[in-house]
C-alpha cells in the first residue's frame, strides 16, 4: 500500500494541474509517520528516505529526528547510509538529538568496515593516520570544520595536517591541500613557511584540482613574499606549456599576474621582471590562442613557433638585418594581435622605432626560427600595462567565460595599478553593452576604479544612458549604486562640479521601483551639508522636488524612492535662508497627500515646516504688511492637525503673541540655532574611554539584593510607596544636582577627552570654503537635466575645474584613535584561526602519539629530506661566501630555511643555464648594454642572510672556478683540525643531558659555527634520535664522498639501535650532502634536518645527538 503511494506521489508531482499538493503531502507525511512506528527497519529507512526528499522540497522534518537516529544506528550499511544522509540534510547544532548522533558517530567511527566509518566520519584528528586512504582523505577534509568550530585545535593538529601534504595517496594529498589552502586564504602569512612544500607538490602533482588550489595559494602568497615569485617562474611556465585544462591555465595566468605585480612593485630594477614578463606573456598568449610553443632551445629564449596559419609571423625571425629588439617586438605584436594584425600594429609602432616592412615580410615563406637574446635593453611598457594588454585579448574573446574571467583578473590589477587599466576604458564601456549581465556587472566594478576628474562626467553620462535602457530592476539598482559609489568615492575626489552631481541625484529620483532611495537621500544630505557653496543650488533643487513630490510617492508603501523626500524636506528646512519662495515650499510640505508617506518622513516634514515657518516669520518681521505672516500661521494651523504634532501648539501660541504685536521671530529662530556639522563615521567609537571611567559602576547606591528580588512583586500592589519614594529622592538631590551639573560642566571643559561639539559652532567661518564663481548663470527651472550640465564635456575636460569646491571634512574627536580594527567582523570564524603555526608546540598542546604513527612519521620525513635536497647546491655556494664575509645569523631555523629556499635561483639547473646563456648571448649580437647583463632574472634577491654578498662578487667567485674552492676548503680543514678536540667535548655534553628540545636549538647554532673535526683519512657521523639509538652511521672521505655507510647493527658509544626505519632516507640524505655539498654542509644539514624533524614530530623525536667519530 505504501508502495503505491510512493508511486502515486511521484505521478502526481508531475501533474501540473494538481491543486492540492500541500494537502496531498500532508497525507503522505501521515503515512510516513505510520511507517516510522513500525518495527521493520527497512520500512523505517524507506520512510526516512522519503523524508529526505520532502526536506529538499522545503518541508520541516525535524520531528522525525529520533527516527533518523534510529535508522543511523542500524547495523546494515544500506539503512545506516540513508540515516546519515537524512541527518546530514536536516540536523544542525541545535537539533535536540545531537548528543545521540555524536554517540552514534563515535560508534561508527570505530567500525571495522571502511565504508561504515567513511559514512560516519565527522573527523577526529586521531584518525588521520588510518591505514585506509579513503578514511584518511575524509578525515583530513573534516579537520577544516573542526578548526572552524574549535580554533585551539589548529596548532596541535597542524603538524599532522602538514604531514598529509606528503601522503603517498594522491587523494589524501589533495584533501590536505584543500584544507590548508582554505585556511591559508584567510591568513596567508602564517603559511608562508609551507611554500617549499607546496612548491614541491606543484612540480610533482598531476592532479589538476590540486594544482589549481596550490597555484591560487601561491597567488595569495606572492604579495607577501616577492622572492617567491621568482621561484615560481619555472614550474608555472612548464604548466602553462603542458596543461590541456583551461581552468588550470587560467589560474596560472592569474598567479603570473600576481607575481608580476608583486615584482614590479617590489623591485627597483624593472628590467629583470620585464624580461621575465615578455618571456612569459608570449607563452601565455600563445597558449590562449591555441598556438603550440615548441620545445626547442630557442624557445627558452623567447621564441614561439607558430602554426602555419600564422606562419607569416616567423618571417621576422629570418630577417637577419633586423636588430634583436625589433624582431622581438614583432613577436610581441603578433602574439598580442594575431588575428587583427594590421589594424593593431599602429598602436605599437608609435612606441617603437620599427622600420620593418610588414607587407614585404608577410609574403615570405615559413623559415626556421633564429635564436634571440632574451634581455631587452629597455622595457617597452611597464609590466602591469602588459598584463592588461594580455587580458584585453581574453576580454575580446568570443568565449563569454573567458571574457568574464578576463575582466575579473583585470580588476585585480586595477587595485594596484589603476593607471594601466584606465587606458582600456573603451573596452570596458563596450562590455557594458554586453548582453550578459554578469559581464556588465564586472565591467561596472572596473569602471569604479577607472574614473578620474577628467572622465567622471563622461562615464556617468554613459551609465545614465544605461540606467534608462536597463530592463531588470536588479541591474538598474546595481547601476544606481555604482553611479553613486563612483561619484562619492574617496570623499568626492573626482567631482569638480557639485551642481552637476546634485542634478544627477535628482535625475536618479525619477527611477521607479528602486530600493535605493535612502542611498540617494543620504548623498543629497551629505553633499548639501558638507559642500557649503552648493547649498543655494541644492535648496532650489530640493524645493522643486518637494513641489513635485506627487511624482515620487505614487505607490508609497512599496516605493523606496520617497526616501529622497526626507532629504529634500530636511535640506529645505535647515537651509531655508536660501529658499527663494519659502511660502510655496511650506505649502508643498503641508499638502494632505503627505499623510500617506512613511512615518519618519512625516516627522521630518513637520519639524522642517516649523523651521520654514520661523524663516518666514523673520523675513516678515520688519514688514508692516502682516498678511503674509498671518497667512503662514493660518496655513500651519489649518494643516498641522494632520500630523498631531506639538508644533501646532507652538504655532498657535506664536500667533497669539503676534496678534499682540510681540516680536517673536528671533525667539522662534533660536529654536533651530546652531550649525549641524557632519561627523565622521565611527567617530563615537574611536573616542578612548577616559581613565577611571567605569560605565558598569553604579552611580547611586545599588539597590539591595533583597529589594530587587523579593520586594518587586510587592511593589506592584503598593504603588503608593514607590511613588512617594521616587520624588523624595529627586527632591533631595534637586539642589545638589544643579551643583553637580556645574561641576560636570567645569570638568568637561577641562577634560581633553570630552568632545566639544559646540565649541566650534560660532567659528565655522574658519573652515576654508572657496566660493563658487557664479559668473555662469545657472539654469534651474523645473527638474534639471544632467545632460545639459555635462554638455560639452570635451571643453570642460581640458580646463581645470572652474567650480573648485572645498569639502567640509567630517568632524572627528580630537582624541580619536587612528585604529581601523573595527572594520573586521568580530564574528568572522577565520579571525580565530589566525594562529602562528611556526611556533613550537607547548607540552600541553601536543597530541598523544600513537605507536604505529612513528613509522609513518619517519616515512614522511624521508620525503622531507628529498625536498631539501633540491636546495642544496645553492647552499653550498652561499655558505662558502658567507664564511668569509659574515658570520651566520642566529635566526630561528624555520625562518632561515624559508629565506634560504627563497633566495635560491629557480631550482632547475636548466633554467639557470638559460639565464646564463641569456646573459652572455647579447654579447654576440651586441645590442644589450652590459648593465642589464649583470642583473639576469635568475640572480637571487638579497636574502637577509647574505646581505653582505654582492651579486658581482658572487659572480666573480663563481667564475674563478674550483681553484678558489680548494683553497678555501684547505683553510677550513686547518680550522677544523684546530677545533677538533673542543668539538668532541661539546658533543659529549649534549649527549649527557639527554637531549631536550632546548638543547637541540642551542646545538644547531653551535654546529653552524664550528667546523667539522677530521681525523686521519675520513670522518664518521652518527646520528642518534630520541633517548634511544643510533639511526645511522656514515663514513666520509676527506673529499667529502661517502665511503662507508652503516645504518643497522652498528653500535657506538653504547647507544642502542632502533628498528632502523629511518636508515634508508637518512643514508640517502647523507650521501647527497656528502656528494653535493661537501662534508661540513652534510653535517650541518643533517643536524638542521633532524632539528626540524624533532620539532615537527610532536615529540616523537625528543632530541638528537650527533656524534662524530673516526
Amino acid at each position: 500500500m505504501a508502495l503505491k503511494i510512493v508511486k502515486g506521489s511521484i505521478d502526481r508531482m508531475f501533474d501540473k494541474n494538481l491543486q492540492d499538493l500541500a494537502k496531498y503531502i500532508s497525507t503522505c507525511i501521515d503515512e510516513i509517520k505510520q511507517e516510522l512506528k513500525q518495527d521493520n527497519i527497512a520500512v523505517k529507512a524507506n520512510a526516512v528516505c522519503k523524508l529526505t526528499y520532502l526536506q529538499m522540497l522545503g518541508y520541516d522534518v525535524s520531528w522525525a529526528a529520533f527516527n533518523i537516529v534510529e535508522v543511523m544506528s542500524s547495523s546494515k550499511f544500506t539503512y545506516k547510509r540513508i540515516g546519515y544522509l537524512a541527518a546530514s540534510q536536516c540536523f544542525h547544532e541545535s537539533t535536540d538529538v545531537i548528543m545521540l548522533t555524536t554517540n552514534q558517530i563515535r560508534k561508527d567511527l570505530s567500525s571495522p568496515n571502511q565504508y561504515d566509518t567513511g559514512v560516519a566520519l565527522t573527523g577526529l584528528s586521531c584518525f588521520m593516520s588510518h591505514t585506509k586512504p579513503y578514511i584518511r582523505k575524509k578525515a583530513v577534509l573534516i579537520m577544516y570544520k573542526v578548526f572552524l568550530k574549535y580554533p585551539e585545535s589548529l596548532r596541535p593538529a597542524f603538524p599532522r595536517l602538514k604531514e598529509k601534504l606528503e601522503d603517498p595517496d594522491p587523494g589524501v594529498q589533495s584533501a590536505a591541500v584543500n584544507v590548508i589552502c582554505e585556511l591559508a586564504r584567510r591568513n596567508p602569512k602564517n603559511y608562508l613557511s609551507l611554500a617549499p612544500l607546496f612548491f614541491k607538490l606543484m612540480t610533482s602533482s598531476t592532479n589538476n584540482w590540486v594544482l589549481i588550489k596550490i597555484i591560487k595559494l601561491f597567488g595569495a602568497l606572492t604579495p607577501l613574499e616577492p622572492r617567491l615569485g621568482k621561484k615560481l617562474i619555472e614550474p608555472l611556465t612548464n604548466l602553462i606549456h603542458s596543461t590541456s585544462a583551461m581552468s588550470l591555465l587560467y589560474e596560472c595566468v592569474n598567479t603570473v599576474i600576481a607575481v608580476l605585480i608583486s615584482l614590479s612593485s617590489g623591485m627597483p630594477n624593472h628590467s629583470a621582471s620585464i624580461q621575465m614578463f615578455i618571456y612569459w606573456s608570449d607563452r601565455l598568449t600563445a597558449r590562449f590562442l591555441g598556438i603550440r610553443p615548441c620545445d626547442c632551445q630557442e624557445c627558452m629564449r623567447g621564441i614561439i613557433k607558430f602554426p602555419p596559419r600564422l606562419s607569416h609571423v616567423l618571417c621576422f625571425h629570418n630577417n637577419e638585418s633586423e636588430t634583436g629588439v625589433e624582431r622581438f617586438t614583432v613577436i610581441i605584436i603578433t602574439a598580442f594581435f594575431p588575428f587583427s594584425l594590421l589594424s593593431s600594429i599602429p598602436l605599437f609602432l608609435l612606441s617603437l622605432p620599427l622600420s620593418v616592412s610588414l607587407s614585404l615580410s608577410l609574403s615570405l615563406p615559413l623559415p626556421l626560427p633564429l635564436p634571440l637574446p632574451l634581455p631587452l635593453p629597455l622595457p617597452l611598457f611597464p609590466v602591469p600595462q602588459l598584463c592588461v594588454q594580455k587580458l584585453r585579448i581574453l576580454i575580446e574573446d568570443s568565449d563569454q567565460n573567458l571574457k568574464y574571467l578576463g575582466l575579473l583578473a583585470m580588476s585585480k590589477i586595477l587595485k594596484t595599478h589603476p593607471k594601466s587599466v584606465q587606458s582600456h576604458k573603451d573596452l570596458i564601456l563596450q562590455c557594458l553593452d554586453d548582453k550578459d549581465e554578469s559581464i556588465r556587472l564586472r565591467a561596472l566594478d572596473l569602471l569604479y576604479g577607472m574614473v578620474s576628474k577628467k572622465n567622471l562626467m563622461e562615464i556617468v553620462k554613459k551609465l545614465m544612458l544605461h540606467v534608462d535602457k536597463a530592463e531588470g530592476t536588479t541591474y538598474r539598482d546595481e547601476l544606481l549604486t555604482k553611479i553613486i559609489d563612483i561619484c562619492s568615492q574617496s570623499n568626492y575626489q573626482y567631482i569638480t562640479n557639485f551642481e552637476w552631481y546634485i542634478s544627477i541625484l535628482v535625475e536618479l529620483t525619477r527611477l521607479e521601483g528602486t530600493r535605493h532611495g535612502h542611498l540617494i537621500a543620504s548623498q543629497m544630505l551629505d553633499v548639501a551639508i558638507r559642500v557649503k557653496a552648493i547649498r543655494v543650488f541644492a535648496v532650489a533643487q530640493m524645493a522643486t522636488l518637494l513641489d513635485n513630490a506627487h511624482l515620487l510617492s505614487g505607490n508609497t508603501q512599496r516605493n523606496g524612492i520617497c526616501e529622497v523626500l526626507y532629504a529634500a524636506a530636511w535640506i529645505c528646512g535647515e537651509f531655508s535662508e536660501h529658499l527663494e519662495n519659502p511660502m510655496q515650499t511650506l505649502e508643498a510640505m503641508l499638502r494632505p497627500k503627505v499623510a500617506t508617506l512613511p512615518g519618519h518622513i512625516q516627522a521630518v516634514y513637520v519639524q522642517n515646516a516649523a523651521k520654514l515657518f520661523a524663516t518666514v516669520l523673520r523675513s516678515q518681521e520688519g514688514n508692516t504688511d502682516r498678511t503674509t505672516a498671518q497667512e503662514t500661521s493660518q496655513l500651519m494651523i489649518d494643516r498641522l492637525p494632520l500630523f498631531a504634532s506639538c508644533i501646532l501648539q507652538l504655532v498657535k501660541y506664536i500667533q497669539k503673541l503676534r496678534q499682540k504685536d510681540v516680536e517673536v521671530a528671533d525667539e522662534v529662530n533660536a529654536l533651530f540655532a546652531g550649525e549641524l556639522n557632519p561627523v565622521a563615521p565611527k567617530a563615537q567609537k574611536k573616542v578612548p574611554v577616559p581613565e577611571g571611567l567605569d560605565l558598569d559602576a553604579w552611580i547611586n547606591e545599588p539597590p539591595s539584593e533583597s529589594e530587587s528580588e523579593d520586594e518587586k512583586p510587592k511593589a506592584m500592589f503598593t504603588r503608593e510607596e514607590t511613588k512617594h519614594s521616587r520624588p523624595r529622592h529627586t527632591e533631595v538631590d534637586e539642589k545638589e544636582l544643579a551643583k553637580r551639573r556645574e561641576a560636570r560642566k567645569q570638568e568637561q571643559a577641562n577634560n581633553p577627552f570630552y568632545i566639544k561639539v559646540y565649541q566650534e559652532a560660532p567659528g565655522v567661518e574658519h573652515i576654508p570654503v572657496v566660493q563658487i564663481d557664479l559668473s555662469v548663470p545657472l539654469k534651474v527651472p523645473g527638474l534639471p537635466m544632467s545632460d545639459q550640465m555635462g554638455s560639452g564635456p570635451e571643453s570642460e575636460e581640458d580646463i581645470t575645474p572652474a567650480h573648485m569646491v572645498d569639502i567640509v571634512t567630517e568632524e572627528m574627536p580630537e582624541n580619536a584613535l587612528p585604529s581601523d580594527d573595527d572594520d573586521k567582523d568580530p564574528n568572522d570564524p577565520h579571525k580565530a584561526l589566525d594562529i602562528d603555526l611556526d611556533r613550537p608546540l607547548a607540552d600541553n598542546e601536543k597530541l598523544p602519539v600513537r605507536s604505529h604513527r612513528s613509522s609513518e612519521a619517519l616515512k614522511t620525513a624521508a620525503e622531507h629530506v628529498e625536498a631539501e635536497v633540491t636546495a642544496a647546491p645553492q647552499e653550498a655556494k652561499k655558505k662558502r661566501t658567507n664564511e668569509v664575509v659574515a658570520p651566520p645569523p642566529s635566526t630561528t631555523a624555520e625562518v632561515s630555511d624559508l629565506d634560504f629556499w627563497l633566495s635560491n635561483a629557480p631550482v632547475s639547473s636548466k633554467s639557470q643555464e638559460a639565464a646564463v646563456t641569456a646573459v652572455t648571448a647579447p654579447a654576440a649580437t651586441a645590442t644589450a648594454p652590459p648593465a642589464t647583463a649583470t642583473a639576469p632574472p635568475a640572480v637571487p634577491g638579497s636574502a637577509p642572510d647574505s646581505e653582505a654578498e654582492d651579486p658581482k662578487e658572487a659572480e666573480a667567485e663563481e667564475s674563478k672556478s674550483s681553484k678558489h674552492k680548494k683553497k678555501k676548503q684547505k683553510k677550513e680543514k686547518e680550522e677544523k683540525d684546530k677545533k677538533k678536540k673542543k668539538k668532541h667535548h661539546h658533543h659529549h655534553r649534549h649527549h649527557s643531558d639527554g637531549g631536550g628540545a632546548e638543547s637541540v636549538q642551542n646545538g644547531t647554532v653551535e654546529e653552524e659555527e664550528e667546523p667539522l673535526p677530521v681525523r686521519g683519512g675520513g670522518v664518521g657521523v652518527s646520528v642518534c634520535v630520541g633517548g634511544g639509538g643510533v639511526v645511522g652511521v656514515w663514513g666520509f672521505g676527506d673529499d667529502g664522498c661517502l665511503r662507508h655507510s652503516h645504518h643497522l647493527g652498528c653500535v657506538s658509544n653504547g647507544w642502542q639501535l632502533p628498528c632502523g626505519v629511518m636508515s634508508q632516507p637518512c643514508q640517502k640524505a647523507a650521501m647527497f650532502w656528502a656528494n653535493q655539498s661537501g662534508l661540513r654542509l652534510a653535517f650541518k644539514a643533517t643536524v638542521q634536518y633532524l632539528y626540524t624533524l624533532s620539532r615537527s614530530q610532536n615529540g616523537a623525536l625528543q632530541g638528537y645527538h650527533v656524534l662524530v667519530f673516526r
Partner: protein
Amino acid sequence: MIKAILIFNNHGKPRLSKFYEHYSEDTEQQIIRETFHLVSKRDENVCNFLEGGMLIGGSENKLIYRHYATLYFVFCVDSSESELGILDLIQVFVETLDKCFENVCELDLIFHVDKVHNILAEMVMGGMVLETNMNEIITHVDAQNKMEKSEAGIAGAPARAVSAVKNMNLPEMPRNINIGDISIKVPNLPSFK
C-alpha cells in the same frame, strides 16, 4: 569553499539540494527559488558565472552553473574556488552520474535522490572537494552498492520491492507528462585527469 550545490529543472523544481551551511528549510527554499530566478533568465550563450543572490552571501559568493537538457547544476562557491575549476567539477559530477545511471536523466535524480547524494558525497564533503578522479569515485560508489546488495537478504525485500514497483511503472511515466528530451547529454569537455 563550496557553499551549496543545487540541481533544479527548467521549472525551478529542486532535484537535489545540498547546503554546506545550515539554513532553515524556508530559507533553503528561498535560496533555491532565488537562484533559479537568477540562473533561468540567462541566455544559453552567456558566461557560466554570476554573483550569488542576496540570501546566500551576495557578491561574496559566485554561482557557477551548467545547464544540461532539463536540469541546471548550480554550485555556489566563495572566492577561494577557481571558476573554471568548478565548471570542470560539474562536468565530472555529471559524467559520473551518467556512468552510474547509464544515460542519466531527470527521472533518475527524482527516483534515486539518495544515490545522487551518495555519489556527491564521494566528490564533495563539507563544502570541500574530496575527489576529482572519476574512476576513484565510481570505485567507491560501486563498492558501497555491492555492500548494499549483499546485505539485502530477507530484510531487504521491501526495499527491493519498492524499486521493483517503481521500475515497473516507469514506462508509463512519459505518457502522463511531457518531459521532452530528458536525458542529459554530456558533451565532451576537458576535465580533470
